[in-house]
């Protein structure tokens, strides 16, 4: 048995790949990949993302104790690879999707059902070296069963009652209590990885910025950081700070509105109205300062597309002043409404052990004791120059997730204010050099860690790019959260997670 081997020590048994930045990549042979899986059974190494190419499987790992990040790759000559899903259950659906899209078979995975392929594409395994012919008719999906007296099923979706994204939920219930929830996703699979291969940088940036529209700044940021790492592009300092302002504006806008929407799902509509007004203030400020309400396409490889004038900065400071007051009013309202607490406290609990097993981040993780935040680890500018606290609770219920979001939004408002006061002068954008390379970019979205991996050819065209959404590790936990709760609490639990369908389905 090996002693306390760090991730980097372990991966050094593989062959390092030149030109992968800022963290190393190692190619493991068959034996090395098997050893990695054995090691993952005991090591505190989290999976950040897993993705495939035609003949390769890649996994980005983080050593939780040493803090190192590295990518492990494996050449699957026979189009099969030993599945990581048995030791990291969070990637089971990812590996099912890899089989659907790339045709690489995860060996050892018990769940062999298709995931994002519903049997409706013009080809099966569309991105494999040799795609297979289309399915004669759409697949029937064999849902897991629950057996017992008085059990009934409730099918919901893909078209839901609210203004939300499409997905199917299959409930098995006994009376009001949910015995089992199973999700079926993939309805908004757009083939984004296929679109990105061969795309010029500007087109790819546009597409990655639309993997999940509510996290567009975080995606654009992770993509830009990956490109800049791959090409060795040095971004001007001011651009980092402007990116920080945009990212925190996005976080605040999403947190406040989702808090309102979650309360609305507990029939407390006044919070939604209050938060809707607050969200609108942020979106209008975005529009006035950067020219887009959601700041889409504002973070670009090499910097940012729009500078912030002194006048704009002052206007934003002024806006924040009033905003904070109304935000705290909402917090008081939340904390002092017993009928609302009655719905949110002890509802939809996710155990800390599950959070760790699935490696879930964001407010879902932080409400159940997993305090990881990409702004701190690995960390990136401008946060390395700013003190910030990451709130963590352990209750893991709807209430905890809402309280974490209040605390994060409060912290973000504080950060924006500091960034505006301390923002350095200078250029905001530099050209990206046209060189080949591989890069990994990480950014903390309001949901958690967005990871983008890419390889750029010498002609400046994306050869392969994979964007990873934090929802991928959170969706399965929603199934656990609702178990034993009543059906009527599902919207509340679902909104307290607010996972991205589009980001998950890719």
């Amino acid at each position, binding site marked *: 048995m090996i002693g306390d081997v760090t991730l980097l020590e372990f991966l050094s048994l593989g062959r390092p790949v030149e030109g992968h930045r800022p963290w190393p990549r190692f190619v493991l042979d068959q034996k090395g990949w098997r050893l990695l899986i054995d090691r993952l059974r005991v090591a505190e190494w989290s999976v950040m993302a897993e993705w495939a190419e035609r003949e390769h499987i890649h996994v980005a790992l983080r050593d939780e104790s040493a803090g190192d990040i590295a990518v492990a790759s494996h050449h699957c000559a026979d189009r099969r690879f030993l599945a990581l899903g048995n030791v990291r259950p969070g990637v089971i659906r990812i590996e099912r999707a890899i089989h659907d899209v790339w045709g690489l078979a995860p060996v050892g995975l018990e769940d062999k059902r298709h995931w994002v392929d519903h049997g409706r*594409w013009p080809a099966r395994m569309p991105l494999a070296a040799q795609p297979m012919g289309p399915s004669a008719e759409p697949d029937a999906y064999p849902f897991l069963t629950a057996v017992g007296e008085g059990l009934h099923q409730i099918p919901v979706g893909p078209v839901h009652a609210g203004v939300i994204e499409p997905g199917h939920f299959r409930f098995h219930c006994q009376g009001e209590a949910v015995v089992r929830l199973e999700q079926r996703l993939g309805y908004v699979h757009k*083939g984004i990885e296929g679109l990105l291969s061969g795309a010029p940088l500007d087109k790819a940036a546009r597409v990655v910025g639309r993997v999940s529209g509510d996290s567009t700044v975080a995606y654009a940021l992770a993509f830009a950081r990956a490109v800049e790492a791959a090409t060795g592009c040095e971004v001007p300092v001011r651009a980092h700070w402007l990116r920080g302002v945009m990212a925190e504006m996005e976080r605040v806008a999403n947190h406040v509105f989702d808090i309102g929407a979650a309360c609305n799902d507990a029939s407390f509509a006044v919070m939604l109205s209050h938060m809707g007004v607050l969200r609108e203030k942020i979106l209008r400020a975005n529009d006035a300062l950067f020219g887009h309400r959601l700041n889409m396409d504002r973070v670009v490889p090499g910097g940012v597309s729009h500078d912030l004038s002194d006048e704009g900065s002052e206007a934003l400071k002024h806006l924040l002043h009033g905003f904070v007051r109304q935000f705290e009013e909402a917090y008081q309202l939340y904390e002092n409404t017993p009928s609302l607490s009655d719905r949110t406290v002890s509802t939809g609990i996710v155990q800390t052990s599950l959070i760790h097993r699935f490696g879930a981040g964001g407010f879902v993780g932080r409400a159940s004791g997993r305090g990881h935040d990409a702004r701190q680890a690995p960390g990136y500018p401008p946060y390395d120059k700013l003190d910030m606290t990451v709130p963590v609770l352990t209750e893991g219920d709807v209430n905890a997730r809402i309280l974490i979001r209040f605390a994060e939004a409060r912290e973000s408002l504080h950060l924006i204010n500091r960034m505006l006061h301390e923002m350095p002068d200078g250029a905001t954008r530099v050209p990206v050099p046209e060189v080949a390379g591989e890069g990994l970019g990480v950014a903390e979205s309001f949901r958690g860690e967005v990871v983008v991996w890419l390889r750029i050819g010498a002609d400046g065209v994306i050869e392969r790019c994979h964007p990873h959404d934090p929802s991928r590790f959170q969706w399965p936990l929603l199934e656990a959260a609702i178990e034993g709760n009543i059906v009527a609490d599902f919207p509340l639990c679902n909104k307290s997670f607010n996972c991205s369908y589009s980001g998950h389905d890719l």
Partner: protein
Amino acid sequence: MIPPIAKILARHLLKGPHTMKDAPRPDPGGVAELAEALGQRARARLGRSLSIREVDAGSCNGCELEIHAVNQPVYDLERFGIRFVASPRHADVLLVTGPVTRNMEEALRRTVEATPEPRWIVAMGDCARDGGCFAGSYAVVGGVGDVVPVDLHIPGCPPSPRQILAGLLALLDTVEGK
């Protein structure tokens, strides 16, 4: 201690809703006038109100965010009798977002079939016109018009609340006699 809810309710009773007083900037695009005109036309055409069912056929969820915005107090679409409903069976208008993915194509068709006549289909956002930046993918059929007949397209990525209001107004202008 006075409960926070009492403070908020009292303030709104005394000062009026956000819709009237609390827009962060004065209305540069005449949102209020637009919404008013929209309400009058909806009443003239439909006699009562306009019910909208939203269908996400593959969007990135950006369009959904702006649909939420028009429902919030600042724009408050519902004061003009235009509201979002939970079922296509209650709807006059289907507001469809996103490129239509192959996995959503049948669901979209079925939703249209479940909507009683007369019905109008509005494609919202640049993706809904022709697939936008997702066009050409194996998993995408194309725009909404490639799957179901479209009465109107609202441009934008995503369309702003003002563009959404203007689009619904244009719909009411063009659908006379249907």
